């Protein structure tokens, strides 16, 4: 019958009301956890992916930094030539112009992501460790090498036709082993047909592979100096940029879930306030017997904290389960775990729930502990 026991007794005395409040906090916390788990998931897969990417530097048009290789194809052949010249002078290992094309809709089932590679260059240069399961590793003229997941999903085999546009078609000449990385979901093709489909001679990015001992930062700055209008970003810079962008999107998503949290907090405050009003006589008796005001204050705040913490913990668990279910789907569909309930997210959720309970409990607790004893005893 310690004070917590007293609080528990009171919550259990009105089980339906307590349960409903708990449910409110549970849903609020679960939705927040879920919202934020997407940021964590994205962060995790992005950094896993980036740390696996071979080339240390990506050259992109100025203004499209941080978009990875997905920007508009704005690097002209002249700029590429200038880059190659500068790269040779700097002694880089390889300089690979590349181009991206997405075909299909929103549904990952029917979408295809093509990456163009210059003649003779295989995907293993960009995605180290990638191996061919069947056929070739390096795309040929008119021949595409298909990532393991795409092949499985779209039931592609050697010789299957692939259509980039009504005019341009290719044949599958190689299928990659599944590596668990980004390459699983890509189709590697020669640059020329992609440029034809996009109606451009340009490239969206130039990837630079370094020789051992070369400093990414220094090479990047030298390339930028040599070719104006381009931005050379090292993997570290991309990570920092992405982290900034993710943090902003975290804030936005937290802002959205704040609505649910505030509703949950109000639920707790309402429940506790109601229970305070019903128990004014009880508090009066306690104080008549010799309880100090702080005792009543703690009793009420603990009630709110307990509700919030219990709801928060269950909400976290529910968020985790839903996140797991979402990942099962997205892993199957696009090969990425989109959602992650990381330890720091769990801790954050529990802290938010606690803070919620504290805020919801303070006012009723203050109220309960301030009523004059005579007045409280006068109530029935």
């Amino acid at each position: 019958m310690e004070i917590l026991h007293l609080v528990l007794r009171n919550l259990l005395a009105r089980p339906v009301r307590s349960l409903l409040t708990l449910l409110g906090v549970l849903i609020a916390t679960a939705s927040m956890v879920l919202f934020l788990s997407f940021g964590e998931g994205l962060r995790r897969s992005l950094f896993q992916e980036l740390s696996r990417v071979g080339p240390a530097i990506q050259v992109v048009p100025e203004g499209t930094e941080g978009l990875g290789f997905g920007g508009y194809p704005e690097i002209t052949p002249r700029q590429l030539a200038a880059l190659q010249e500068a790269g040779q002078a700097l002694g880089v290992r390889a300089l690979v112009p590349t181009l991206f094309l997405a075909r299909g809709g929103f549904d990952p089932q029917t979408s295809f992501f093509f990456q163009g590679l210059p003649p003779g260059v295989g995907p293993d240069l960009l995605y180290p460790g990638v191996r061919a399961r069947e056929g070739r590793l390096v795309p040929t003229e008119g021949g595409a090498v298909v990532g393991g997941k795409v092949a499985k999903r779209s039931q592609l085999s050697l010789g299957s036709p692939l259509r980039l546009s009504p005019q341009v078609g290719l044949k599958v000449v190689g299928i990659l082993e599944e590596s668990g990385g980004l390459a699983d979901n890509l189709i590697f093709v020669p640059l020329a047909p992609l440029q034809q489909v996009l109606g451009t001679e340009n490239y969206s990015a130039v990837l630079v592979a370094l020789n051992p001992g070369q400093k990414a930062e220094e090479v990047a700055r030298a390339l930028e100096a040599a070719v104006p209008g381009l931005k050379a970003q090292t993997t570290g810079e991309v990570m920092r940029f992405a982290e900034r962008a993710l943090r902003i999107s975290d804030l936005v998503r937290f802002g959205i879930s704040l609505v649910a949290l505030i509703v949950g907090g109000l639920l707790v405050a309402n429940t506790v306030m109601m229970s305070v009003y019903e128990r004014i006589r009880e508090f009066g008796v306690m104080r008549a017997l010799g309880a100090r005001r702080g005792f009543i204050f703690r009793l009420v705040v603990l009630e709110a904290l307990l509700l919030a913490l219990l709801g928060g913990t269950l909400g976290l668990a529910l968020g985790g389960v839903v996140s797991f279910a979402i990942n099962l789907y997205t892993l199957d569909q696009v090969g990425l775990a989109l959602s992650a309930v990381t330890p720091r997210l769990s801790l954050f959720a529990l802290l938010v729930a606690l803070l919620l309970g504290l805020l919801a409990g303070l006012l009723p607790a203050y109220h309960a502990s301030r009523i004059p004893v005579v007045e409280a005893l006068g109530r029935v």
Partner: protein
Amino acid sequence: MLRAENLSKRYRQGEKEVVALLGFTYAFPRGATAVVGPSGSGKTTLLNLLAGFDLPSEGGVYLDGLALHQLPEDERARVRLKHMGFVFQQWNLIPTLTAWENVAFPLLLAGRPRKERQEQAFALLERVGLAHRLHHLPSRLSGGEQQRVALARALALDPPVLFADEPTGNLDAESREQVAALLFEAGKERTLILVTHDLELAARAERILYLKGGRLAREEVVQPAG
């Protein structure tokens, strides 16, 4: 010893001023003192001031020389816990706690360990004849049983002063007798202050104070103390 000196309480009610108690001076000796008087004569007001629930407009309350009315709220609560026990007319008990837990409540406030609390609560309930009701919630107890639990709780920390405001007000004759017997028994070695309308009950005390219009009108000694 509990002593009231020139105790007055006035309430503001809009323009008017209500004098609930005026110039009450009395030293309560050991044993039972009944406070009687018509409705509105200031009985509850007096009890509120003596117990430190409320502060007087004038005058003071002294417990063994300690000026109770000069202490802040939480200090008065401490004094109540250590030195005073209470039985009210009704709704005495904490509804979510069982009989023994109610009795153990002051022991909890005093920071006693659980084992001691339980043992003592059981013993106290046995003393008031409720050994078979230890684990009942107040809602499962009769009015008389509830008052006996309240009395057991009032005695938990063995306080020298015991207050009772109409403790038998809502009880049938048989329960009334049980509660009264236990109350006066407990009041023997303490200062028992019993507020009541019931003159029969008051007559069992050693002294009776008659309040009228907020003043102490008369003191009657029923049986000489000791």
